[in-house]
């Protein structure tokens, strides 16, 4: 019994980190959100919910939320469906399946800054994707995809789908691997082809993998930042301004720490609601 208590000391590093680098900042930030803390002054007064009510009528913040939602709901369905299709095909153990799996994953291990720079070039006027559109007879925006209000956010979303797919292919593949092989053998015996097997065995049994993929991707997509920083800084006309970029811009660049903390908390609450809702929906379906 004594050793069981002594062993608890081994958990100290996490307890210290939990307190100092997680719980303290999370609550400190909540406190800051109720103050008019300015970076330059290094102090601020308690102002109650003023930041929150100002934010909810700040058109720039609302635009950043709108763009973030657009980004999240625009990319996740596409990424999920494509990743599932690729995973189903790769799982058929066709020649070279290992190579496909590895190659699709390469964007996921590459620094986002690097990817954003490459795509900045490809999307620019005269860049490869720009020229490709011209060859296809479409007329790309005159100054490049990232310079037009209509296409900038969409272009970044397309890039995000490209980046994220490999990771989710991998997770779907792991899910498929955990399905008992006997099920497939029975189906093959009954003469079920790829589409039948996928529709009646694989996809229904991947429910919890789906849940995981969607929740994970939601949390990630709501926090999109690096590509905005490198590619557009929110331009043109705030059309690519996302919520985390807003927090960064107001809090760090302009030093309105209090105001930006309130924005961070609003985003936190939205995200929490979404994650809980998604978990709920999934659990309801599971028990049904």
């Amino acid at each position, binding site marked *: 019994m004594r*050793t*069981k208590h*002594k062993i*608890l*000391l*081994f*958990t*100290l*590093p*996490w307890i*210290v980190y*939990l307190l100092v*680098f*997680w719980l*303290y900042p*999370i609550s400190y*930030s909540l406190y*800051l959100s109720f103050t008019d803390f300015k970076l330059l002054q290094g102090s601020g007064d308690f102002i109650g919910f003023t930041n929150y009510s100002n934010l909810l009528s700040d058109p720039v913040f609302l635009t950043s939320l709108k763009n973030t939602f657009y980004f999240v709901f625009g990319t996740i369905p596409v990424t999920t469906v494509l990743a599932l299709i*690729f995973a189903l*095909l*790769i799982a*058929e153990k*066709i020649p*070279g399946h290992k190579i*496909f799996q*590895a*190659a*699709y*994953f*390469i964007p996921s*291990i*590459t*620094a*986002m*800054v*690097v*990817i954003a*720079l*490459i795509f*900045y*070039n490809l999307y620019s006027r005269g860049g*490869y994707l720009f020229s490709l559109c011209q060859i296809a007879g479409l007329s790309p925006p005159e100054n490049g995809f990232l310079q037009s209000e209509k296409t900038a956010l969409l272009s970044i979303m397309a890039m995000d789908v490209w980046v994220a797919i490999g990771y989710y292919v*991998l*997770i779907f593949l*792991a899910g498929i691997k*955990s399905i008992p092989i006997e099920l497939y053998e029975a189906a093959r015996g009954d003469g079920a082809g790829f589409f039948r097997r996928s529709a009646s065995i694989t996809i229904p049994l991947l429910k919890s993998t789906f849940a995981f993929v969607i929740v994970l991707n939601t*949390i990630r997509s709501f*926090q999109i930042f*690096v590509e905005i*920083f*490198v590619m557009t800084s929110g331009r043109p006309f705030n059309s690519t301004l996302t*919520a*985390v970029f807003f*927090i*960064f811009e107001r*809090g*760090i660049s302009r030093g309105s720490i209090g105001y930006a*903390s309130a924005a*961070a908390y609003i985003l*936190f609450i939205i995200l929490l609601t979404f994650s809980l809702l998604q978990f709920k929906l999934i659990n309801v379906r599971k028990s049904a």
Partner: protein
Amino acid sequence: MKKALMLWMVPAFLSIVLFIMIFPMIYMILLSFQEPGSFSLSLRNFGLTLKNYAVVFKSNNFGTYFFNSAFVALAVTAGNIVFCAMVGYGLSRGNIRITWPIFLSAVAMLMVPVHVLILPIFQMMLKFGWFDTYLALIVPWLVAPLGVFLMKQYIDGLPTDLEDAARVDGAGEISIFFKIVLPLCKPALAVLSVQIFLTTWNSFLFPKILTNSSKMYTLPVGLALMQDPRSSDWPVSMAGSTVAALPVIIFFLIFQKRITEGITAGALKQ
């Protein structure tokens, strides 16, 4: 008909996707060898020059950035190896009524979006006087909740006989941990270290916020701030990108199995 579909149509389709997935990386590498000032690749004046790499290392401090990235990533990885294994061991072998809530706290922190931490951590680092030093880039990241989670799960599956035998022989708890438990954790630690190393090497948001002098930049920060992409010298920019990305890609191709294992291990156990 069905056979033909699986035999060549599916591989053909997946190959086209493969080309789309790796083309930007090939483009990056090839563009980094073109004459300075080129905007994109063209067959007419295809070049093979190392000039851009010279620019990147001589006038852009990439040597320093590379060192900072490597040093920070290695330090963070080393810290996580020791601390997460310790915590995992404590959580796995301690009294469950106490360890369970601690374990749950780690799982809960996995779900906390990091954007809530941006401003308070920035503010804390200023107050500690750690801003723009290695301390800010390393110390807050030494015990990752993901690592605590993975190591606890792994150590749960290890037998306790060896530990008990050592205890009967009068070995101290610390030496039991370092001499018996830690070596047994090697497979899980390999997975964890790859994961932590990659995340730290590629990370941009916190290194950007917590530094403001070029001698402290890591590769992603130096790369993003090197020049305005609107007016940039693309081959130089791509040479810098290649320096940041290629080592990781090669590393991945070598340790592919470990890396993918780590990702799916973290994914499936939830």
